[in-house]
C-alpha cells in the first residue's frame, strides 16, 4: 500500500497534458548509469491487516516497563498521563500541520505554542521560552552554545552530576569548537560550591548544574550560581525537571540565566527514548540569542489578538551560518502534549504529583536501608540546605550486583532500577531507583521484599 490515488487512466491523461510519453521522461537528466535497474531489496508490500498483525507480533516481543512495577528513571520517568492528553494531542489538525509559517492558517498551533512558552517561563521563573528543542540534552547544549557566543569566553564547567548522556552530548558538540569542557567533580553526590570556586576563572562561559541531579540529589543552585556569577558575564545554566518545579525551588528564583530540561515527564510516554521534548528558557536579555522558534503576540487589522513566528532573523532560514542555531524542525507535537498536560493537571495537580513522588521515594528509601547490607550511596544531612536531600530518585548500595536484583525482578514483573555502572554513574553494586506517583505502597513493599530476598 503506497497511498497513491492516481489511477492508470489519470496517469495517461496527465502525461498527455504534459506532453511527455512516460514518467521516465522526467528523469531524463539523471544518466541511466545512476538509475536503479532492479527492484529495491525490501520485503513485499503488506496489506493493512497484515501490518496490524505484524505490529502486534513485534510489540509482543517487548516486555514493557509500563506493564510492570517500574522503578526506572535516569532521565525518563513513569508518570500518570491523563487520557485527555492522548485524545487532544492525537487530533489530525495538530498531528499533520507543519511549522506555522503562515500565521492565518496556523493560529491553533501558534496559540498552543504561545501558551506553552508562557507555561515554561512560569515553571522556570524565567522571562522567555522557545517553542521547544529536540530533547533535554540538546536543550542543554544549545544553552552552552548561547553562553559561549554571548560571553565570548571558552570554558564550560559541567557538574559531574549531570546525566551522562547530556555530558556526552556536550562533549560531542564542543569537540570541534574552540571551547573547553571542564568537569566539576562531585562530593558525596553533589557539587560543592568550593569546587566551583576552585575551577572557575574569567574565561568561564557557563556553569552547568542539574538538579535534582542524575543521582536524584537536590543541588544548591542558589549558592552554586552565586559563585558562577562571581565572574563577570559567566552564565548559570540550570538543568531542571519540570515536575520538580511544581514543588521545589525554580531555576530563575535560584539565579539561573538559562534553564534547560527534559519535558518527558509532562505527559510524554517512554517510547524507548523519543520523541521527547527539550525545554529552554532564559532571561529576557538573551531573547535575541535564543535558538529555535519563538511565537509572538500580535493583532490583525481589526485589532483581534493573534500569534505568529517572530524574531526569525535569528534563524537558519534567514541567517544561514550566522544563525543562533541550525535547528529547524523541532518537537511541536510534544510541546502541544506538554501544554495540554499542564492545562489538564493544573498547578495543584502538578504539585500533588511532585509531593507523591517525594513521599513515596522517601518511604521506599527508608524501608530499603533498614534491610541488611543496603545503604544509601550518599549521606543524608537533613536541615543542611540542600545537603543530601533527594527528590524522587536515589542511589542504593546493594550487597550484591544491581544486575542480580534486576534479574530477580524479571520473575515478579518488577523493574527495580538502573545499574549505576551500566549507566556510567557508579558501581556494579549500585542501583538507581526512581519512584513516581504511579507506584502504590504495595508495589513499594514488593520491591523491598525483592531486594530482601534477591540478594
Amino acid at each position, binding site marked *: *500500500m*503506497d*497511498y497513491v*490515488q*492516481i489511477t492508470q487512466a489519470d496517469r495517461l491523461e496527465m502525461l498527455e497534458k504534459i506532453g511527455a510519453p512516460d514518467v521516465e521522461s*522526467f528523469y531524463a*537528466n*539523471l*544518466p541511466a548509469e545512476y538509475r536503479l535497474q532492479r527492484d529495491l531489496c525490501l520485503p*513485499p508490500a503488506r496489506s493493512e491487516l497484515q*501490518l496490524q498483525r505484524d505490529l502486534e507480533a*513485534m510489540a509482543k*516481543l*517487548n*516486555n*514493557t516497563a509500563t506493564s510492570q512495577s517500574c522503578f526506572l528513571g535516569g532521565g525518563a520517568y513513569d508518570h500518570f498521563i491523563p487520557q485527555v492528553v492522548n485524545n487532544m494531542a492525537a487530533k489530525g*489538525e495538530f*498531528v*499533520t*500541520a*507543519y511549522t506555522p509559517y*503562515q500565521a492565518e*492558517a*496556523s493560529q491553533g*498551533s501558534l496559540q498552543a505554542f*504561545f501558551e506553552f512558552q*508562557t507555561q515554561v*517561563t512560569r515553571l522556570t521563573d524565567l522571562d*522567555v521560552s522557545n*517553542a521547544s528543542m*529536540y530533547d533535554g*540534552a540538546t536543550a542543554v547544549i544549545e544553552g552552552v552554545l548561547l553562553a559561549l557566543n554571548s560571553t565570548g569566553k571558552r570554558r564550560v564547567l559541567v557538574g559531574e552530576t549531570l546525566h551522562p548522556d547530556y555530558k556526552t*552530548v556536550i562533549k*560531542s*558538540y564542543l569537540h*570541534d569548537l574552540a571551547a573547553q569542557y571542564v568537569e566539576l567533580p562531585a562530593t558525596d553526590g553533589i557539587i560543592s560550591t568550593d569546587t566551583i570556586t576552585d575551577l572557575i576563572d574569567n574565561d568561564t562561559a557557563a556553569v552547568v548544574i542539574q538538579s535534582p541531579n542524575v543521582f536524584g540529589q537536590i543541588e544548591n543552585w542558589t549558592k552554586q550560581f552565586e559563585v558562577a556569577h562571581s565572574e563577570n558575564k559567566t552564565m548559570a545554566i540550570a538543568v531542571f525537571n519540570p515536575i520538580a518545579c511544581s514543588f521545589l*525551588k525554580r531555576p530563575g528564583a535560584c539565579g539561573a540565566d538559562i534553564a534547560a530540561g527534559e519535558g518527558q515527564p509532562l505527559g510524554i510516554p517512554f517510547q524507548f527514548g523519543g*520523541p521527547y521534548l527539550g525545554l529552554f528558557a532564559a532571561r529576557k536579555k538573551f531573547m535575541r540569542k535564543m535558538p529555535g*522558534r519563538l*511565537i509572538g*503576540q500580535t493583532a*490583525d487589522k481589526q485589532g483581534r489578538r493573534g500569534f505568529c513566528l517572530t524574531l526569525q*532573523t535569528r534563524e*537558519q*532560514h534567514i*541567517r*544561514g551560518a550566522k544563525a543562533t*542555531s541550525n*535547528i*529547524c*524542525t523541532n*518537537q*511541536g507535537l510534544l510541546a*502541544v502534549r506538554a501544554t*495540554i498536560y499542564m*492545562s489538564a493537571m493544573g498547578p495543584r*495537580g*502538578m504539585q500533588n504529583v511532585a509531593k507523591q513522588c517525594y513521599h513515596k521515594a522517601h*518511604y521506599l528509601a527508608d524501608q530499603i536501608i533498614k534491610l541488611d547490607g543496603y545503604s544509601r550511596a550518599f549521606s543524608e544531612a537533613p536541615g543542611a540546605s*540542600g545537603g543530601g536531600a533527594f527528590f524522587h530518585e536515589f542511589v542504593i548500595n546493594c550487597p550484591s550486583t544491581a544486575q542480580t536484583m534486576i534479574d530477580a525482578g524479571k520473575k515478579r514483573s518488577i523493574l527495580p532500577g538502573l545499574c549505576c555502572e551500566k549507566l556510567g554513574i557508579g558501581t556494579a553494586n549500585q542501583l538507581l531507583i526512581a519512584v513516581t506517583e504511579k507506584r502504590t505502597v504495595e508495589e513499594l513493599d514488593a520491591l523491598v521484599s525483592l531486594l530482601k530476598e534477591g540478594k
Partner: protein
Amino acid sequence: MIDPKASPKLIFEQHNPAPKTPSLDLPQLDVPEIAIDSDLLADDLLNLPEVGQLDVVRHYTALAKRNFSVDANFYPLGSCTMKFNPSINEAAASMEGFTGVHPLQDDDDAQGMLKMLHETQTWLAEIAGLDQVSLQPAAGAHGEFTALKVIRAYFNDPKGGNAPQRRKVLAPDTAHGTNPASCAMCGAGVISVPSTQDGYVDMDALREMVDGETAAMMITNPNTAGLFDGQIGEIAKILHDAGALLYLDGANMNAIVGVARPGDFGVDIMHYNTHKTFSTPHGCGGPGSGPIAVKDFLAPYLPVPQVVQNDDKTYSLKSNLPKSIGKVRSFFGQVGVLLRCWTYIAAAGPDGIRNIGETAVLNANYLAACMEDRFAMPYFSKAEKKYCAHEFITVPKDLLAKGVTLIDIAKRMIDYGIHPPTMHWPVHDCLMIEPTETESKATLDHFIKVMDTIADGIEEDAAFVKAAPYHACIDRLDEVAAARSPVLTAS
C-alpha cells in the same frame, strides 16, 4: 458586542478552580508524609491556570480547528513533502507494546523495538544505496550536523582520512539555510558554490573551489529549485579526485526513492528526513527524524548506541565504538517517529516505494504544465520539454506587475482552503509548490482552478486581493509589529 471572529481566550484567562480535576483525583497518598526542608521548596504554587476538563477539551478542540493540516487541506508546501499520514502509522506509534518501553531497559526486554529499528536502518541503507545507518539524529538539520561531525572525525583520524586540514565545506548558493548553519555549529567554514542560469551547479566554479582543504560538498539533488542535476556523477568525481567527500541533503528524496540511489551516484554520506519522505507527520513543526546513511569507511565514526543483530538473531545495542563521535542527543533517537517510518516502508514494499517517487514527480509536472501559462516558471517549460522533479518554482511576474505581492497571493490561497506554498525561496518572489504523490488528480485539478481564479481576481481587482484573507479564522496579522516589540508570553 461579541466579535464572531474573536480569538479564543488564552488558557490563562480561563482560570476557574474546579472541584474536580484528574490530577486531584490521583489516589490518596498511601505512604506516610516525610518532612522536607522548607529551604528547598518553591515559595508559591506554580502560576498556572486550573481549568475543568470539559473546558480543557473545548479549548484544544477550538485551537485545532484554527489550523490548516494535511488531514483537512491540500498543503503544497515546497521542500516539506506534506504527504498523507496514514492512520495505521499513528495506531502503531500509540501501541502500548511500543510506547511503554523505557529507554534504558535491558536489551532482552526490548527485542521488538530493536528488531523494528534494525529493519528500519537496513531498509534505509538499501534505499540510499549506502552501507550503514545511524537513526539517532532528531531532525534533518540534526542529521546534517551529525554527518558533518562524522566527516570531521574521519579526516581527523590518522588511520582514516588523515587530513585534519580539511575543514572547508562547499554548498550551492541555493542550499537550505540549515546547511551553512550546521557547518557553523561544527566549526566548519562554508563556501557558497554559484549556480548557473539554468539552476545547476556551476562546474567551472566548483573545480576552482575544491582544494586540499575541502572536506566535503553538501548538495541537494534534486536541487532546491526542483531540478535533477545530471552533473552529479561529475561533481562526485571532482570531489573524490581531490580527496573530499560528497554529502547529500536528503530533503528531496521523495523524487527519487526507488528510482535512483544516492550511493550509486557517488554520495558518501547523506541524511533523510523521515517526516518528508516516509510520511511521518510534521506535528505543527516536529518531531522529525534525520537518520544518516554512510559508506562503510565512515561507519566507525557514527554515533552510539547502534542496533546490531547477533549471530543468534537477537538484537543488541552496541556502544563500545572507540572512534564514534559520541552522542548527539539523549538515549536512542526519535523512536516513535521511526516506528511510523517502519510502518510506511513495510506497507509500501519495493514497488510502492518506486511508485511514490514516480508519482510525486508526475504530480508536480502535471501541476506545472497546467499552471505555466499564468504562473511564469524559470526552469520548467512544457514546450521545451524542461521538466521538474517532485516540486517546482514559479515567479509570477505578470501577476506581481498588477500590484500584488507574493504574500497577497499566498494569503488569498488560504481563503480557498489551500495552505500556501513555500515563499521567496530558493529565489526571491517565488512560490515553491510540491504536491506529493498522495494527492488525487481531482485535488490537483481543483488546485489549478483555484490558482486560475486567484489570477483572475488579481487581474480584475488587485486591491481586493491585497486585503486577503477574508475567510480565515483571523484577518491578516501584523508580523512586523510582533517583531518590533516582542510579546512572547501571556501577561
